[in-house]
């Protein structure tokens, strides 16, 4: 059982064996590259530049995804929108994961009143539909991208609290944690080095899944007019603006929607792949 080949098979090996994981990773990677292109200005046109001559042109060699009603290049705008969506989502999920995992692990480990408090507060957050809560927070904060990120981050924190707290309850009763205390390890060391790595797997999976939800929420907020403001492009906003044009200029609606779909499906597949790779029980040979 214990040969070198067996040992070399880490989580990556198992990840690469899962078809959905690989497909998802490729999709997400394409979207990330696309977003990076827009950061460095590698877009064919300025996303807010208006080409008055070429209003509502269909896809062509000049304008790959066509132009919208102000003659702006849909391709450049989609890239820029993807960048904003990813920026907001990654910021939001980092915030949610950091806060949620810290509170979740601490609540599970400390227990008593602290656990009660944290669990009850996150229950209250859970009681609201995510988009509604995010809407309320954005409405009271403002429309900058970091306001949206903060709103989405707060909304997704309770999920991370739950995902982190549950396994801690099991792990903290294990003998090796008791022995860590018997041997005089400090609580901080036990939490950081002995409990966190044991509850790491479900958190990683949750990060991938939350990213896809965060992108949907961000698009939803922009669609409803509470996220990114015109003329700055955002995938949700583009879908919203394209709605009345859809009947005769399908490209204005299809391409941003397609990008949202690809990145969300991709992240979900990555989540599945990670779950399979990190859970020994689900590993298929």
């Amino acid at each position, binding site marked *: 059982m214990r040969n070198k080949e067996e040992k070399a098979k880490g989580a990556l090996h198992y990840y690469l064996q899962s078809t959905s994981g690989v497909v998802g990773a490729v999709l997400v990677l394409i979207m990330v590259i696309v977003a990076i292109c827009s950061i460095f200005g590698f877009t064919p046109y300025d996303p807010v530049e208006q080409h008055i001559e070429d209003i509502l042109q269909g896809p062509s060699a000049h304008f790959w995804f066509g132009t919208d009603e102000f003659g702006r290049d849909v391709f450049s705008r989609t890239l820029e929108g993807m960048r904003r969506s990813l920026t907001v989502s990654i910021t939001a999920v980092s915030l949610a994961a950091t806060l949620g995992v810290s509170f979740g692990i601490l609540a599970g480990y400390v227990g008593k009143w602290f656990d009660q408090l944290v669990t009850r507060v996150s229950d209250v957050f859970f009681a609201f539909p995510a988009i509604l809560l995010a809407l309320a927070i954005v409405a009271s904060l403002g429309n900058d991208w970091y306001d949206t990120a903060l709103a989405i981050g707060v909304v997704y924190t309770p999920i991370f609290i739950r995902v982190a707290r549950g396994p801690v309850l099991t792990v903290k009763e294990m003998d*090796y944690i008791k*022995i860590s205390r018997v041997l005089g390890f400090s609580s901080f*060391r036990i939490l950081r080095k002995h409990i966190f790595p044991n509850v790491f797997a479900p958190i990683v999976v949750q990060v991938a899944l939350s990213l896809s939800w965060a992108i949907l929420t961000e698009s939803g907020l922009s669609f409803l007019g509470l996220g990114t403001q015109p003329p700055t492009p955002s995938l949700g906003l583009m879908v919203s603006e394209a709605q009345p044009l859809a009947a005769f200029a399908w490209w204005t609606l299809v391409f941003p929607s397609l990008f949202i779909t690809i990145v969300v499906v991709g992240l979900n597949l990555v989540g599945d792949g990670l779950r399979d790779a990190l859970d020994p029980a689900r590993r298929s040979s």
Partner: protein
Amino acid sequence: MTPQPLLSVTNLGISTVQDPRTLVNNVSFDINPGEAVGVVGESGSGKTLSALSILGLLPRGVGVVSGEILFNGKNLLTLKPEELRQIRGNEIAMIYQDPMTALNPVMKLGKQLLEVIASHDGINGQSDDRVRALLSEVGIPDVNRAMESYAHEFSGGMRQRIMIAMALLLSPKLLIADEPTTALDVTIQQQILALVSDARKKRDMSMLWITHDLGVVANLVNRLNVMYAGRIVESGTVEEIFRRPKHPYTAGLLSSLPTSTGTNRERLTSISGVPEKPWLVGNSCGFAARCSRAQSRCHNEIPLSVVKDDSTVACFFPLGSK
């Protein structure tokens, strides 16, 4: 002439916090430097709780209600949590019953052992060598490979050896062993006993060995405390207790041990009845209900420990007396 004891437990009482139920009552014993002391008792007799209270790690909902625990002259019950943490692992270490779940499954062994040093002295250039030296002392065959291995790659016996290495890493003055051989095969059990015994003598370390098996401790410890229903009913040197048990319970325990010398194919004797719950004993001898020598006085009065020479017994009608 008596040396200052390393650990001195006096009148220790442990009870549940809510709806108080006495779990350990009036337990006193000393451990001298370099001495090995055994605590023998059935499940629920309070032996593990007494040991955990020394480390300040009683389970939630259970607390010390009386007595004091002096270690090197310091009362462990009044130390600040941080001071107590420094003592744990450093000066008092413990090995547990079940080695199967006692190692962190996601951490390489070498790193796990280094954690012990890191949490007290801090890692330095020699830390790695210290870990290797201890692993080879406890009989891990390929130390270099073991350092890079995970817990699941070791058998139960090997894991218990690793646990012992972990406990000995910082050369504690006192090692508490809570039935560390119960979960192992009898042959492995013997090896572990020999290992602990050698390591102890080499370091002149004191030891508190908790077990329900008199046979295990016979060759391992100097003194024995027999616990029953939350009290120490008899204590003395191993020789004294094995040759001339005074408390009827001790005598019962001894006669229920299988012997290799008996020629008759006789049944093992057992003590009839079940052990009394410590909190239901009240004003009586806990063993009275199962004792063949019990008289009315045993049901109405708590027998106090009577000291004679080097031994004590808590019985109104001890064996070997009229």
